[in-house]
């Protein structure tokens, strides 16, 4: 869907559902997912429909993901960090994580 215009940014290694993804400094989690061509970042807690980042400006809450074990984080507001573990969120969040 998207390609990177400039490959100038420093590489930042994160994992998404355990698989390595090459992000760049300056990426948010949501942008890194889009750049990596990941189809959807969660399924809804209501019908299980797949959803992907939509507004990228903190408004729509479609990019909710689990970041380093904490669920329902807004991926578009969180900068990536070396070693960050991102997980797609399936349906309702589990209490305690």
């Amino acid at each position, binding site marked *: 869907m*998207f390609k990177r*215009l400039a490959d100038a940014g420093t590489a930042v290694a994160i994992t998404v559902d355990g698989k390595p993804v090459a992000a760049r400094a300056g*990426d*948010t989690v949501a942008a890194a997912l889009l750049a990596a061509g990941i189809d959807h970042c969660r399924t809804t807690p*209501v019908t299980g429909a797949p959803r992907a980042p939509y507004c*990228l*400006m903190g408004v729509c*809450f479609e990019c909710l993901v689990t970041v380093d074990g904490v669920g329902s984080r807004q991926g578009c*507001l969180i900068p990536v960090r070396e070693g960050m573990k991102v997980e797609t969120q399936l349906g309702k969040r589990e209490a305690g994580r």
Partner: protein
Amino acid sequence: MIAASDLAPSYDLVVIGGGPAGLAAASLAARAGVSTVLFDENPGIGGQIYRAITTTPVADRAVLGEDYWAGTELAADAKASGASIVNGATVWSLDPQRMVGASIAGKVRMIEAKRVIIATGSQERPFPIPGWTLPGVMTAGGAQTALKAQGLVPSGRTVMAGSGPLLWLLAAQTLRAGGRVDAILDTTPWRNWLQALVHLPDFALSPYFTKGLALLREVKAKVPVHRVDRVEAVGKEKLSEVVFASGGREQRLPADLLLLHQGVVPNVNLANAAGVAHLWNDRQLCFVPVLDADFGSSVPGIAVAGDGAGIAGGTAAAERGRVAAIAAVRALRPEATLPDTQAIRQKLQREEMGRAFLDWLNRPAESFRQPEGETLACRCEEVTAKQVRDMARIGCEGPNQMKAFLRCGMGPCQGRLCGLTVTELIAAERKMTPAEVGYYRLRPPVKPITLAELASLPISEAERKAVER
């Protein structure tokens, strides 16, 4: 990085939002000797229009255009002003006594403010078409954010649909950056010209006139444009094609990415929760706070500047921020030396000139604002347009009652992506005006915080006794 614990318990001025209005306001106030903190939830300042202005990887200045780079000075000015600028700070609460609840890296603080300027700007108007929740469908603003902040450009089969200047700007920026745009579906109704035309002379004098024309020419030379009255996103687990129609003739385009945009509307959640009175603006088809000439709201000490005060664009937003900041400084530190207000107001007036033309011309058609059938009105709780219409027919005449009946607006986005749609659907079904129907009544937290964060707030003896019995 400023942490929650670094913050003072109170500030003269709290500015919420780091776009042009917030940056200009904070800079002016801090330079006038007023203790100022600016909270912004994004990783960097700039807001949406100047997104990532200090960090963008897009080096070729022609790609984003000179209007974008105008933000550089504003950002530098604010940084050097002495205002504390806190990024990654989500303001989740504001009450009429101007107590500000902020969450920074998982820690909450309540900050007292003598004055507050809400500069939370705008968001894109909901665009509820069939399939708008499919992965592969995004807002044009979202794609523009990815371009500015991360240098990401659409590379697959890309369709842009909607109306308004941002759509054309994004198309031009995408093309300049070597990205792909397969088609533009222009949803602007022809009859909008009838109301817009009378405002054309004003617009012709505004700086946007020549820029706008050039932009249209630039895009139309390279991309096929279709006038359409229906758009649908189709796909199973993700977008596979865009279906559109004009006068009943249906066409299909295979697509990987559909970018939607039909203008922007004020981001009202925080102001609404603070008790700021809002009124329906029929030209801009949205709720706008009731404000005085200094952008002061109905709640004493709280002003709303920038596009949150009604859509006028980024340059006007900065001037609005300055006007609001001058009023705040006058109240807080009357002896301070201030810039010439008259000059700022004149500049603002020039910037706002031509807005009527743009508003009327780009006013989205009813069919793109008032969905039918199984199209989702509320994305979070997955409430369909039909459900909303049916409940309205059996007597539900307001969005708050609708929320109770159907849960629309109760999800994490707290009505941001369904509020206007629900109001308009009720109005349509009950033959009322949106002004009569009204909007959701919002309460803090206007953005989610954790239970642990809420639990960590100071609790008085009386407050504890209200719960422990």
